[in-house]
């Protein structure tokens, strides 16, 4: 089973930091919003790295469960976690972060959720893994790794799973 190492994940987050700080439009306030649960952990790491580069970013986390499009197909609903977005997104540059993008439906839900907190100036999407099984015209600005469409991708992060790696 192929594995992506902790070092590779760390390196990817460093590259994201470089990319985000490379072109900061003047006057745009920056927020990093992660999708619960794993994207929020990545968002926190990214904010720490940005701070080390001298860039302040607000932190947000979104639980998209209430915005899913497959509600009728679920026999039981996942327990909700509170979204955390204690600021208006009006006019902000939002970096949306998740661990994996596949169909694009989660991101669709996340965009809907996000826009109920205001009208961001722009939204960029950063994911660790792109599984490529897109069902909607949604694509990440940056995906650190790509895996085959039929891969069973498991992203482990220290803060949740006790270890950092990606297996597929």
């Amino acid at each position: 089973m192929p594995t992506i190492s902790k070092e590779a994940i760390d390196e990817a987050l460093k590259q994201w930091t470089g990319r985000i700080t490379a072109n900061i439009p003047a006057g745009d306030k920056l927020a990093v919003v992660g999708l619960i649960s794993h994207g929020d952990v990545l968002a926190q790491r990214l904010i720490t790295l940005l701070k080390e580069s001298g860039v302040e970013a607000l932190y947000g986390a979104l639980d998209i469960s209430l915005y899913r499009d497959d509600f009728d197909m679920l026999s039981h609903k996942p327990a909700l976690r509170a979204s955390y977005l204690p600021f208006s997104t009006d006019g902000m540059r939002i970096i949306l972060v998740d661990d994996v993008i596949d169909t694009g439906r989660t991101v669709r839900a996340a965009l809907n959720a996000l826009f109920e907190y205001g009208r961001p100036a722009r939204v960029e999407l950063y994911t660790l893994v792109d599984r490529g099984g897109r069902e909607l015209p949604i694509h990440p600005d940056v995906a650190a790794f790509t895996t085959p469409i039929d891969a069973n991708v498991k992203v482990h992060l220290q803060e949740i799973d006790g270890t950092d790696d990606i297996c597929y």
Partner: protein
Amino acid sequence: MKPRKDLLTIGDLSTEDVNTILDSATAMKDIFTKSVKKVPALKGKSVLTLFYEPSTRTRSSFEVAAHRLSADVTTFTVSTSSVVKGESVHDTIDTLMSMKMDYIIVRHKNSGIPAVIARHCKAAVINAGDGAHAHPSQAFLDAFTIREKYGTVAGKRVVIIGDILHSRVARSTSTILKRLGAEVAYMGPGPLVPPQAYTDIPRFTNWDDVFEWKPDVIYLLRVQNERIDTPFFPAKDYHQAFGVTDERLRRIDDLNLSIMHPGPVNRGVELCDAAMDYRNSLICNQVENGIAARMSILYHLTPQTQNND
């Protein structure tokens, strides 16, 4: 939580289910702070409120909850419906099912009617109070309010005061609180506190014993004159014996206890006027949390109308 169509009593739920619904209620409450106080989770779903008994806040609380989940809400008003013309509950249900309702919220003066309706339809049925039997959504909002105030329900002491015998609130709320590890006691007029039904719940008959028990929360029930043929006490005597008087309020304040009440409050009966403005009154929190708790209940139930496959 396991798929569940109806919510009829707290006793039907596992402790895990109870905690899941409470956890999700926290997330629902977060929605109230957004500029758009609405989520699309139940978009396109129909919710019916079917109240055969008057309701001051439960009904509107459910309606607000359903609206915030983007459901369509229909209100079935009994006084203007065929029920007064003699239509049976079953026939009413057949009629309502033809309207393809996904959720039915029922209140009825007879215990067990919501369960009958639940058995006969595909909609998810929520018991919004049946006779003196159960009122599970009230139990959830009470548990949620205590958890929010103290961080946990476990180990807290809650004394429920008033007409325990006729109270579905006392029944459901003490069940959920005990399930979550709280200690519950009852206090009220002798004939209105059941002597044997709850042998494991301490019973007091006066305030001195209540204070000695060292409660964290004083939970007052509404005196339900409509449920008893002849009032046991005139209001003034009830207030002196079992209500929160100005003098008792000072003691409650000194001890930093919380006050709860399911509403609507009979001023000067259960609570003196000053108690309504008491700094540790959780009564308004209960109203707000009622919406979050009911959103969570609606979210977690699964109507059989959803299974299209």
